[in-house]
């Protein structure tokens, strides 16, 4: 079945119909989430009661909008804090890994590469509990030995950051390595011939070349961190990131304020996602 080989009209028609239905299936849940963010009712369900922006800007109960709901605004702040740390750490380590895997030959490279990929095939919940168990064991040992408190090793933002970092780094490494592989080494040689130092060459030639991949992986890391649920759930302390707050509210029974947050998330992640796709190509 390719365009140059004619097929019976009926078959083509059925195929098109299936593709259409599929895309409706894809769009449906996100569409209803967005639509009901504007419904003038306290439940995110039909019937349609009229258009309102109260779920964004409302100040009077029960119509308290997102921007005036303190628990949600605070958790967005928490998520942003976590995401920036995770993204910064993952991109830094990812860049180092890219140089290591692309530029160096050493014994055990294949094994190390495989270990680097492992976080992709470990379920997020397991990643979360293993870090929880390990850090608590360390905290217990240290506290028994010194009599001091080590709250940083108990469930909380530090563990959330480490937990998300532990698997997002793999993605950053893959994206940045792919770009580094396309780099023409003669550019670096030219810089070295012209008297640049090794570090100066990397800073002025190689890193600018990698910049699109670095930025793209930074954006993808922020997105992945923002929406991570499984690993975060196991490691979260008293400050909960957005997904955890939304999950708690969803279990209690939802109001359209959740639709409003979701709409914002959809818009922001679609914009960031498109940006991460097109950015590397523009400077290709």
């Amino acid at each position, binding site marked *: *079945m390719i365009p140059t080989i004619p097929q019976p009209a009926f078959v083509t028609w059925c195929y098109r119909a299936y593709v259409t239905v599929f895309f409706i299936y894809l769009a449906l849940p996100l569409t209803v989430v967005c639509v009901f963010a504007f419904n003038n009712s306290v439940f*995110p369900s039909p019937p349609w009661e009229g258009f309102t922006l109260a779920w964004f800007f409302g100040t009077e109960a029960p119509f308290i909008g997102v921007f005036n709901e303190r628990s949600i605004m605070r958790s967005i702040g928490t998520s942003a804090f976590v995401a920036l740390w995770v993204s910064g750490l993952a991109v830094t380590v990812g860049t180092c*890994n890219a140089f290591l895997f692309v530029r160096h030959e050493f014994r055990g490279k294949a094994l190390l590469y495989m270990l680097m990929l492992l976080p992709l095939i470990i379920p997020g*919940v397991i990643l979360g509990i293993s870090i929880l168990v390990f850090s608590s064991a360390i905290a217990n040992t240290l506290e028994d030995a010194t009599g001091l408190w080590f709250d940083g090793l108990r469930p909380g933002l530090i563990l959330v950051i480490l937990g998300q970092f532990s698997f997002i780094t793999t993605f950053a490494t893959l994206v940045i390595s792919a770009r580094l592989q396309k780099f023409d080494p003669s550019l670096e040689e030219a810089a070295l011939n012209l008297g640049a130092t090794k570090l100066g060459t990397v800073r002025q030639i190689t890193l600018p070349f990698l910049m699109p991949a670095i930025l793209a992986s930074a954006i993808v890391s922020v997105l992945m961190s923002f929406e991570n649920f499984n690993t975060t759930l196991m490691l979260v302390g008293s400050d909960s990131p957005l997904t955890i707050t939304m999950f708690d509210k969803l279990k209690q029974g939802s109001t359209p304020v959740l639709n409003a947050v979701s709409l914002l998330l959809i818009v922001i992640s679609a914009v960031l996602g498109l940006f991460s796709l097109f950015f590397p190509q523009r400077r290709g």
Partner: protein
Amino acid sequence: MRSDASKLGFYLLLAPILLWLVVLIILPHVGLFVVSISEKVGPREYQTGLGNYATFFGEPLYWRTFARTAIMSILATALTLILGFPIAYYIAKLSRGRTKTTLFLMCMIPFWVSELVRTFGWMILLRETGVISTGLQNLGLISGPIELLYNDAAIMVGLVYTSILFMVVPLVTTLDSLDDSLIEAGYDLGGTTVSIMREIVIPHAMPGIVSGCIVVFMLSLGNYLTPILLGGKDSLWFTGMIYTQFITRFNWELGSALGFLLLGLSSAIVFLGLKLSKQSLSNTMGRA
């Protein structure tokens, strides 16, 4: 690599990755295993033994949930492949230029949106007072509200929805690399659509099929949100049990054992998938 300076550079590059892998991946999993084989005999007193694993096999609730999670994940993977393959083929082979980019992007957008939002969307659609139930009533197809949420079919719809992108994307990539002239040659030589699919397209797409299936299976197995929110009170999922042992019951020893079993199952399936298709982990995952 011969000079001391570049040797130093090499070790400086090696340090972060070793720190990351050893401290955050390897040691925690060793720790998890150690906790899973320790039994509590008194307050802060433990002894080594396989008691937690014995509890798992002795208590039908645990191993039945385990089996149920595995079977439903396999089913979700198969469904995702069957539903996703025609879409990937359409995007890779039957659409061109701008249409192709648009369709591909439309597939990607739901993947960027938080799983929580996607699941919330399904809740609005499927619940008793939801969009589908109300819509059907308005059309006069049903007389009273129907509850479509809180059953296994709802879980399946959610699982397929959440993971279909991870199937479509690798499939599009591999199908894109298949030259149209090979398919034409197949037709010229008298092949039928079915035989060309079986002998040319599917063998070529195998790496994509395997990596898609592995990712989808893992995502389903390790999923927590979808089964908890879309499934009813009786729709148990293994990750939910692990969560209960850890956070609600505070029985970390049993929780670790359950966690290790889940990890074992998911690794076994990944290994099996790679062996059956003669692919390696670096080949399949490295291209993601």
